[in-house]
């Protein structure tokens, strides 16, 4: 007996839960008795290789069609091809690459400082009780304060130059890296601790062979969140107060109502974000190759 999907057909299309079952269909057609029982499949079918592109491509097509037909006012949102041509122009006159480079340097510097500080302090508080008492309390308070809220103070302390910008980005990246690494260090499976005790390995060997590899998945997750937080910080500091960088380019374009330049800037941010996240994802897959996950 084939248990039919309880969803109406037009809905199953959207969920793509209902999969054709050739054996069952054939049995139904020639009225032969087929002993195979199938239930309604509740898990989604395997993903297509480039299936995730469907949404973005659809959106792009809609945008292009609406622009061409005049449905979207080009002063509010320029057409996709205008973005491409403006982008090419900006590359040619050097504005895009120059600003991109400045933004990238800021983001990377901030992320590296924040990430290293996050990992270092998480190790301090995750591995020792004293560190836990001192560092973790402060970090938990810091967690409640958005990095952006510290900008006025950072201006007071570091001035309005690069130092302040990098510190805001670093503080933004610090929090998720610290929190996830700390949590992962504290969540090391007690069974592995017992194993290490019975094998009579020393403390540092235990840290190196059991604690750190065990905490690595959490740390990688924290780094990926950290990249996103760093980019958020980058956008904020560049649009609040800057004389260079992608955010500055966007803000300047806004004053002249150059929506195409603004959009090129936005696309650049997106590209930076996607490249950064994908890079970390690749690093993660390499480093954590021993893991068996649903995604693999």
């Amino acid at each position, binding site marked *: 007996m084939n248990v039919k999907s309880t969803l109406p057909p037009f809905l199953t299309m959207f969920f793509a839960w209902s999969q054709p079952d050739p054996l069952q269909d054939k049995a139904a057609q020639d009225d032969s008795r087929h002993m195979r029982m199938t239930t309604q499949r509740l898990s989604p079918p395997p993903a297509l290789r480039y299936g995730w592109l469907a949404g973005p491509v659809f959106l792009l097509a809609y945008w292009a069609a609406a622009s061409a037909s005049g449905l979207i006012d080009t002063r509010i949102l320029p057409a996709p091809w205008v973005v491409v041509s403006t982008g090419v122009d900006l590359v040619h006159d050097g504005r895009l690459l120059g600003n991109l480079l400045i933004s990238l340097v800021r983001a990377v510097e901030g992320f590296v400082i924040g990430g290293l500080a996050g990992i270092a302090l998480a190790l301090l508080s995750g591995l020792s009780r004293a560190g836990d008492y001192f560092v973790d309390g402060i970090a938990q308070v810091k967690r409640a304060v958005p990095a952006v809220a510290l900008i006025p103070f950072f201006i007071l302390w570091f001035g309005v130059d690069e130092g302040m910008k990098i510190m805001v980005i670093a503080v933004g990246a610090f929090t998720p890296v610290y929190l996830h690494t700390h949590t992962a260090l504290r969540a090391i499976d007690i*069974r*592995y601790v*017992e*194993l*290490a*005790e*019975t*094998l*009579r*390995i020393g403390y540092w*060997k235990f840290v190196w*062979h*059991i604690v750190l*590899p*065990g905490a*690595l998945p959490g740390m990688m997750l924290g780094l990926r969140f950290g990249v996103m937080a760093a980019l958020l910080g980058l956008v904020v500091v560049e649009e609040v107060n800057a004389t260079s960088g992608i955010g500055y380019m966007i803000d300047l374009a806004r004053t002249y109502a150059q929506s195409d330049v603004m959009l090129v800037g936005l696309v650049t941010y997106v590209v930076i974000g996607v490249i950064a996240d994908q890079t970390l994802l690749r690093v993660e897959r390499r480093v*954590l190759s*021993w*893991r*068996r996950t649903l995604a693999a």
Partner: protein
Amino acid sequence: MSVVRVRNLERHFTRKGVLNGVDLDIAKGEFVALLGRSGSGKSTFLRALAGLDHEARGSGVIEVPEDLAVVFQDARLLPWKNIMDNVVFGLDGSDATARAQHALEEVELSGRSTSWPHELSGGEQQRVALARALVRKPRLLLADEPFGALDALTKIRMHTLLRRLSVIHRPAVLLVTHDVEEAIALADRVIVLDHGKVMHEERIVLPDDEDARAISSLELRKKLLCYLGVKPQ
């Protein structure tokens, strides 16, 4: 000359006594099975011998050799190390790899040394855990229900393997189990623990003749089950 000497061992958590004065000696190369219902204190006893009960309160004398090895109910392989690195982990000396390779051969897994733990079946993982314990040439092997999570067929194979390896390596063995047949099949001596006390002790001497062996195994089983509070029909 006994390898293990335990005198009047007491352990309690909060107010409830878990071990109430246990005495035990295990001779060199002797295979002892510790039987008990759940909650009888048998795992607490093994953890005390393994030195894993840091928080425990209690008193008594425990003398165990420094070179002991533990096999847990789960194989407890480190998922981020391959099979070889799991066995060799914590071993010193230039011949460590060769010894680990030999240990893997003994459990018939020499071909899997570069596999990840999750690629092995439950029984295979437990064989790796056994190799990791025996490669250390322990004078005392502590096993906490090591076959409890395995299916019946794999269990029988593991019994044969453990019996064979313990004859080769001659460690003193303390096997904690709730499986009466397992205790009879493997041990030289069975100890029944109940309410934190040794309730019964039985030396397992089975005749060589196969039929007679089966009959006396059954009788022993009945007797031990009685001590465990189970009345066979």
